């Protein structure tokens, strides 16, 4: 996946907002990359551009060699807000994509059963989303994105609304799923620990206009578990990232809080 000179500006309330400035980024196959930055740095905007939900003002995104023009099933997305279809059961939600592809009911059922197993939701197949907790909803959302067998998985602060305990379990679950399925993952977060714990590379973004400030190669061995977080090497990466983010957050705050999140 290649992000090539992406630039994004838009009008908001009569003011021109310069959201992204010449973003160049190459994500290797099966790589796990975290986009880390303070709120308002345009990281979600970048993810939505890659997802094809919004168009860049200049530049382009290539996924598997083809230019992104619109959203498509090759790029699965998971959002922070719970976006399950409330009228579908867990199983039906997961089968939504395969059904759009025209896969037969029995094959669909095999696919959903497999992912229900992977995300640990056995026994909840026929529940409606309103009966699920936030963590369970996001597990369904991840399963739903994966069931479509995308080449890239884009996650926009997927665990942002979860409590700390659930969040760290979900991070481990996502790593497990990633190691089993070996998808390319781009993960947006403002949580430094989360980024370092999960990613091969952490792309730190600057405050508006969003630029790539620094790319941190996380050399921690796989498979990682929660104990990694207290190791010296982890803390060293964290120190570097925290310093970078802090600098940007201070910049954003001095720019005034009026601009809001992109």
């Amino acid at each position, binding site marked *: 996946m290649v992000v090539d000179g992406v630039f994004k500006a838009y009008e908001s309330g009569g003011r021109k907002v310069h959201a992204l400035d010449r973003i160049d980024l190459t994500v290797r196959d099966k790589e796990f990359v975290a986009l880390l930055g303070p709120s308002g740095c345009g990281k979600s905007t970048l993810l939505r551009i890659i997802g094809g939900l919004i168009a860049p003002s200049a530049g382009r995104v290539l996924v598997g060699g083809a230019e992104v023009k619109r959203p*498509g099933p090759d790029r699965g997305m998971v959002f922070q807000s719970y*976006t399950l*279809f409330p*009228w579908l059961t867990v199983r039906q939600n997961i089968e*939504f994509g395969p059904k*759009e592809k025209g896969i037969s009911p029995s094959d669909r059922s095999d696919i959903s059963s497999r992912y229900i197993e992977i995300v640990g939701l056995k026994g909840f197949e026929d529940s409606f989303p309103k009966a699920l907790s936030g963590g369970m909803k996001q597990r369904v959302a991840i399963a739903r994105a994966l069931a479509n067998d995308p080449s890239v998985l884009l996650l926009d602060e997927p665990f942002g609304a979860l409590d700390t305990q659930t969040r760290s379990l979900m991070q481990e679950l996502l790593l497990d799923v990633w190691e089993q399925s070996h998808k390319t993952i781009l993960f947006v977060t403002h949580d430094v620990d989360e980024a370092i714990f999960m990613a091969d590379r952490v792309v730190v973004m600057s405050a508006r206009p969003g630029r790539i400030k620094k790319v941190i190669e996380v050399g921690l061995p796989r498979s990682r578990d929660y104990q990694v977080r207290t190791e010296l090497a982890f803390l060293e990466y964290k120190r570097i990232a925290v310093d970078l983010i802090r600098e940007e957050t201070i910049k954003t705050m001095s720019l005034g809080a009026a601009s809001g999140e992109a």
Partner: protein
Amino acid sequence: MEDPVQVRTSPERRRGLELIPRAPISTRLYMALGVASFAFILAVWSLLTYTGMLDPLFLPTPTKVAAAAFNLLAYHGYLNDVIVTVFRVFAGFFLAVLIGVPLGILVGTYKPIEAMVEPVMAFVRYMPASAFLPLFIIWIGINEPEKVAVIFFGSFFQLVLMVATSTSSVPQELVEVSYTLGTSPSRVLWRVLLPGAWPAIVDNLRIILGWAWTYVIVAELIGASSGMGFMIIESQRMLRTWNIIAGIVSIGILGLVADYGFKWSRSALFPWAD
């Protein structure tokens, strides 16, 4: 060991009617309160009438009204009036739904259709259907089609706007997520917008049916020779207050039944909705 932070979270004083905003109550209490408020109205009514505080011509006693209702049903073919009125309501309402729901869905889904249709709807909506009565009588006459037209006119425009709002209220994130799952723009209506909007549309229907009932009575007050509204206006001429009240109460009962029908079918059809 004692917990240092003791927050009183309730259990002790759960008895009695403690008013906590939005706190749920038991089904039994809910029903009891509903019955109690009807009983209260009946009690005030009884107090005002049986004691002779009010002239019976002004407000008759509950027993007098009950007797009038029985009399109407047994000897004056009131059941036929009820059937005629119910038929008119459903004919007008059904026509409005048949055209209004699909149109409202399109308005709420496609901006060009919204741009074409919505301003006209919003304009006509403010023209009171009752003011069109004389015109409808000139145009259509005083037969059934005129009655149905009044009800249609009174409910259609509102319905279109309400259904449009319900459809456009389906969260945009669900539309976006369906695109990322491979849904094409032409299928989003069927796969996301419609299933997401149905419960709200059923609520719209429930509200609009109430309006259809209002308009049927309006239509029957002028140029009708049957129906519940006709009975009411006839009773006014004869100063039979008890019949008027019997008529109004029977409309209320039918409305209540329809309302609960809608509520029940909503939860039966959409178990997933809140």
